[in-house]
C-alpha cells in the first residue's frame, strides 16, 4: 500500500485550491485523484465568462479560471496528480482505493479531502409525468455535448428550471442556431443570478414562464412536445391554464446535489463545517452547493489549511 500525507479526491477548482493551500501550509506529500483526463473539473466545459470576478477581480472564462490553478499545481512537484483515476472506496481510517486504466491502487493518508463536486437533479427527481423518449438532457450534459464534443443535441428546446446552467445553456443553444422556445420556472422568480437573467435570457429575447411547470412530456422515440400549466405561489396547478409547446429537446436545470456517496459508504457524516471523522475533510460543491466558483476556491483554501494543521498536529 502506498502512503501519502494528504490525498485529495477531485481535481476541480475545490481539489486544486485545497492542494495549493495545504502545500502553502507545509504539507509536502500530496496526491490529487482526478477522474477526468485533465484537471479543472466542470470548469473545462464552462466556456462562458463570469468567473473570477470576486477572487481575481477579473472576468475570466471557466477554462481560464481553471488554468491559473492547473499551472500552480503542475509547477508544484510536491503535488502529484493521477488522472483518469476514479476513487471507488474510502474507509474511515483514511484509506482511499482508486482505479485507473491498468491499475487499482490503495493509498493510506494522514488526511483525506473529498472534493468530488456535485451532480444535477434529474427529471426523475422532480417527477414529471409522461413518456421517456430521447431528447431529455441535464444542463451539464448539454454543456458537455456542445462545448466539448461539438454536438448539437436539439433544435427546438424547452428549458425546465431557471438555474444558472440552464440560463447559460439557453443562450448557448440560441447562439448555436437552435430555438429556445421557453424557460419554465415553477417559482415566481429566477433561481439563477440576475446577471444571467439579463445576459442570457433578456438579451436574446427568450420567453420565461414563471409560476409554470411542465405537466407532461410527450413523444415515443424523441421528445415531441410538452404540456405546461400555470401554478400559484404554493405550486398548486391553476385549472384551465394548460397549454402545449412543440419541441424536440428538454433541458433540465432544476438544481444540484453534493456528490457524497463515498463519504456515506465510509460511514462518515458531514456535521456543520467538518466531518464526523477527524482527518477526513469535505470542500467545494461536495460540501455544499455554491453559486460561484470564487466561493468554492475560498472554502477550499480554508479546508486545505485545516487539513495541513491536522497533519502537522499528528
Amino acid at each position: 500500500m502506498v502512503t501519502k500525507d494528504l490525498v485529495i479526491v477531485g481535481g476541480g477548482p475545490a481539489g486544486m485550491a485545497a492542494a495549493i493551500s495545504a502545500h502553502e501550509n507545509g504539507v509536502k506529500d500530496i496526491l490529487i485523484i482526478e477522474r477526468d483526463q485533465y484537471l479543472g473539473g466542470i470548469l473545462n466545459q464552462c466556456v462562458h465568462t463570469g468567473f473570477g470576478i470576486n477572487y481575481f477581480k477579473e472576468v475570466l472564462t471557466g477554462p481560464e479560471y481553471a488554468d491559473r490553478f492547473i499551472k500552480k499545481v503542475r509547477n508544484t512537484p510536491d503535488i502529484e496528480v493521477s488522472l483518469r483515476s476514479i476513487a471507488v472506496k474510502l474507509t474511515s481510517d483514511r484509506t482511499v482505493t482508486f482505479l485507473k486504466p491498468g491499475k487499482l491502487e490503495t493509498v493510506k493518508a494522514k488526511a483525506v479531502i473529498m472534493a468530488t463536486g456535485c451532480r444535477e437533479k434529474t427529471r426523475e427527481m422532480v417527477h414529471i409525468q409522461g413518456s421517456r423518449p430521447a431528447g431529455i438532457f441535464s444542463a451539464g450534459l448539454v454543456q458537455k455535448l456542445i462545448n466539448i464534443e461539438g454536438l448539437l443535441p436539439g433544435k427546438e428546446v424547452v428549458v425546465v428550471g431557471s438555474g444558472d446552467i440552464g440560463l447559460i445553456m439557453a443562450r448557448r443553444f440560441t447562439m448555436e442556431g437552435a430555438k429556445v422556445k421557453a424557460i419554465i420556472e415553477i417559482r415566481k422568480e429566477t433561481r439563477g443570478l440576475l446577471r444571467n437573467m439579463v445576459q442570457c435570457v433578456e438579451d436574446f429575447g427568450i420567453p420565461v414562464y414563471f409560476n409554470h411547470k411542465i405537466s407532461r412530456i410527450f413523444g415515443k422515440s424523441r421528445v415531441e412536445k410538452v404540456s405546461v400549466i400555470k401554478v400559484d405561489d404554493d405550486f398548486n396547478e391553476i385549472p384551465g391554464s394548460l397549454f402545449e409547446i412543440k419541441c424536440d429537446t428538454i433541458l433540465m436545470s432544476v438544481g444540484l446535489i453534493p456528490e457524497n456517496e463515498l463519504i456515506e459508504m465510509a460511514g462518515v457524516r458531514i456535521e456543520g463545517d467538518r466531518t464526523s471523522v477527524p482527518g477526513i475533510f469535505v470542500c467545494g460543491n461536495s460540501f455544499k452547493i455554491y453559486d460561484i466558483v470564487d466561493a468554492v476556491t475560498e472554502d477550499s483554501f480554508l479546508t486545505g489549511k485545516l487539513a495541513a494543521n491536522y497533519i502537522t498536529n499528528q
Partner: protein
Amino acid sequence: MKTYDVAIIGAGVTGTSIARELARYKLDIALLEKEEELAFGVSKSNSGIIHPGIQNSPGSLKGRLCVQGNFLIRGLSKELNIDFKESGELIIAFNEEETRELLRLKKEAEVLGVPGLEIVDKTWLRQNEPNLNADVVAALYAPTAGIISPYRLVYGLAENAVRNGVEIFTETKVENIIYSKPNFEILPSKGLFRSRYVINSAGLFADEISKMLGVDYFKIRPRKGEEFILDKKKENMAHHLILPLPSKTSKGVLIIKTADGNPMIGPTAEDIEDKEDLSTSDSGFNKVLSSARRLIPSINDKDIIAYFAGLRPVAGDDFIINHEDKAPGFINVAGIQSPGLTASPAIALLVTNILKDNGLALKKKFIFHAHRKRTIHLFQSPLLKTKKLIKKDPSYGDIVCRCEMVSAKEVRDAVKRGAKTMDGVKFRTRALSGRCHGSFCTARIMKILAEERKILITSVTKRGKGSEIVKEDRFLLSGAESAKSEV
C-alpha cells in the same frame, strides 16, 4: 430460398427461451424481432421476480408452468451464468382475517406443489425484516421466490441460442403471414422467410400476428404497470420480496429487490388501449408510494432515482399456448403476463412438446453448447478480483459510469455481444442507470458505440431509429477532421 423448420416471432423472454430450447435439436430456427434489440418489448420492463407459484389457481396453466419454471430457472441460470438470487418472499397480513387468507393461499399453493411454505409470526418478521410495518401480524413465507435480471436472461438465452445455430433477425417486423401448404411465408418489413412451423410469441402484438392467419379468438389488452426504482444505497431496506395480499387484477404494489441491488416499488395495474403507451403519471407515483409505505413506512421519495412503465400482454385469466388446427404448424404463445418470466423455461418445454405432437421431428444435435461464459460486471466484483481483471486488461480500470462502476471494457464488450443502442448498453451493463441518469457518462458511451459499430455519432440512438440522441455534429458540418476528445 432457405426453408426454416421453425420461425419464432418476438424475441422477448418467451421467444428466446423457446429458441434456446429448440436449439438442442437438428433444426433450422429463425427468431424475428421488430425492435432494434431483443427484450425491447414487454420483457424490458419486467420486474425480474421469479415467483414461487402462489396465487395461481391449481388448475391453471400459469400455476403449473410457474412452479415448473421456478425449478428449471435454477439450472438454466447456472448454464447461462446469470445470477439468480433466491431471496424468498413474504406475503403479509395485517389482521386475523388476512392471516386466514394466507392459510387458504398456502393450501392452494401446496396443491400446485410450491415447496417450503411457512406462516411466520411477528417475532420472526421483526428479526428478519426490521423495516416492515409494525402493524403486520403474520406473513406467508415462500423460500423459493427469487430475482433475476430479465434482460440479462433474454440476452443470455439469445447469445447461447446463436452459439447453437439459431439465426436472429432484428428490425424485422412481421407484416403478413401466408399459409401455403406445407409452409408458412412470413412477410416482414424487409425480406421474406419461409418456415414449416411458426411460433407466435409477439407479446403485446400476438393477437395481430394470430389474426394474419385467421386465428382471432383472443385479444391482447395492455395492462400498464408503473415501477419506481430506489437508490442502491437502500439495498438493505428489505431482505425479501414483500407482497400485500393480492387483488383480482394484480399482486398489488410490492417491495422488490432487483437483481442489481436497487430496491424497486410497484407496479400499478391499469388497463389501457394504446400498446405503445409507456408513460408514467403522478397518480401512479402517489399510489405506489402510499401503497409501498404501508409495507415499509420509512420509504423516502427522495431515494427514487428512476421510474418506468411496462405493459403486460393480457389475454384473459390464463396463458394461451395452443397449436392452431386452423393453420397447421402455427402455435400461439400469447397472453404471457405474470408469471411469464418464471414460467418461460417451462413454456419452452411445453412448446417443444406441442411441436413434436404436431409432427416436427426432434433429433438431438451431437453437440449442444449448454454453457455460456460469464459476463464480467465490476459492480459485482470484489476489489481484489477487479485488481486482477485490470492487470489482465487495463481498460477494466477505465471507468465510464461512476454511479454504477462500469468500465470502458464492459461497455465495449456489451456492444460486441450485440448492444446497438444506449438502452442496449444500459440493460447489459447498468451504465446510464444510476443516480445521475447518464448526465456524466452519456457522451463517452455514445462515442464508444459509434466507434465500435463504425457509425456516425449522430446515428447513435436511445432505443432504435427515431430516438437519435443528438441532431448535428458540428465538426462534421464544418468539414473538419474529427477533433473530438478522447474516446
